């Protein structure tokens, strides 16, 4: 939720999507990479995954989190996009696990794990 709050604020103040990758270290700690943006309201790369520089050595990428602006979206960015759902499946194949979170323009957080969730799940609460 803390990461979601940071993303929501960054999205609202810039009009761009912001995001980060989630990882798990060898001792089981879950971490998040620094927030980044591609200065685009319709997409964001969550890390420079070619070098993986933001993910600590020995840690495993386990998911992504990003915020929607609502721009150019048929549903005003309220739900996971077709791109999100498709990429979640691609990430599951690539890394063996993937939990995706999005923050919509109203501060709601959706979660989707393509291995266990039939469809995205709306988490309780709302980012203020």
């Amino acid at each position, binding site marked *: 939720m803390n990461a979601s709050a940071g993303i929501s604020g960054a999205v609202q103040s810039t009009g761009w999507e912001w995001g980060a990758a989630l990882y798990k270290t060898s001792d089981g700690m879950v971490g998040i990479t620094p927030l980044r943006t591609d200065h685009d*309201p319709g997409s*964001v790369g969550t890390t420079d*995954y070619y070098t993986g520089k933001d993910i600590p050595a020995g840690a495993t990428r386990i998911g992504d989190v*990003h915020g929607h602006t609502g*721009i*150019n979206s048929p549903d005003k960015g309220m739900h996971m996009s077709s791109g*999100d759902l498709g990429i979640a499946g691609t990430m599951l194949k690539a890394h063996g696990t993937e939990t995706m979170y999005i923050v919509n323009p109203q501060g709601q957080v959706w979660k989707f794990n393509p291995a266990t969730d039939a469809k995205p799940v709306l988490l309780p609460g709302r980012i203020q």
Partner: protein
Amino acid sequence: MPNKAHGTLGGTSTLLACIALCCIVSCKRASDDPLTGWKAISEEPAQNAILLQQAETSQCVWRVAQDAGTHSIAIQQVAHKAPKGHQVRLQTETGVLVGTDNGEYGGGLILTDDKGVLTKRLLDTDVLQLLPSKLGVLVFTGLLHLSFDEGAVWLYSKGSDGIWSIKKIADLNGKPSAISSANGDVLAVGGHGVSRLDQALNLTEITLPFAQVFPNSIAEDAHGSIYVGMNAFVVRLVPAKTGYTHEWFTKPGCLR
């Protein structure tokens, strides 16, 4: 003696004339160099985490372009834009090609008639650029989202049977963030370097670590040097015996 003196004087005059000419040529070259007055960066930014971090948050965003009239390179400071959707159009003999790019929400390439009525759907992917070429229309596609980074170039062309169709020419090394037509070839730049598509549709790629410096524009001058505009920096790729040498430049105040 007079002759000798005259000869010496003549030699001196010739020397002075040569020096003056050299000065003029040098000044002309300097004035032609779009990076005159810029500060050269001796270290590749990709090797320096501090430079990369400064570039990522820099307020300097440099855009390069080739002037259509003089063919010289122009560099402008621009702002990051928040585009309200991206659409590209191109008139062809079969109708109007309309490409759309809505990032994670998808895009496509359609063919419409002159009234804008859909006649054919050609692609279901984000379309970034349409460029006419001798062999047909080049269509650049791509998406960078989360950890997905793909790009491709397609050709919409008329076959020997007279029927128009679209086919993929090549996958690119990630989504291109800028594409330009230069000196007959097409150049594209993205987070992983520069691609060149020649007029015979041969693709060559120069791998460069651009993922963290946000390249936004690319242009080639008449001498074959390639300029890339990005956050904080302009990089010039100068043809060498093998490949290109890389020259990085910035301006005071862009890195802090």
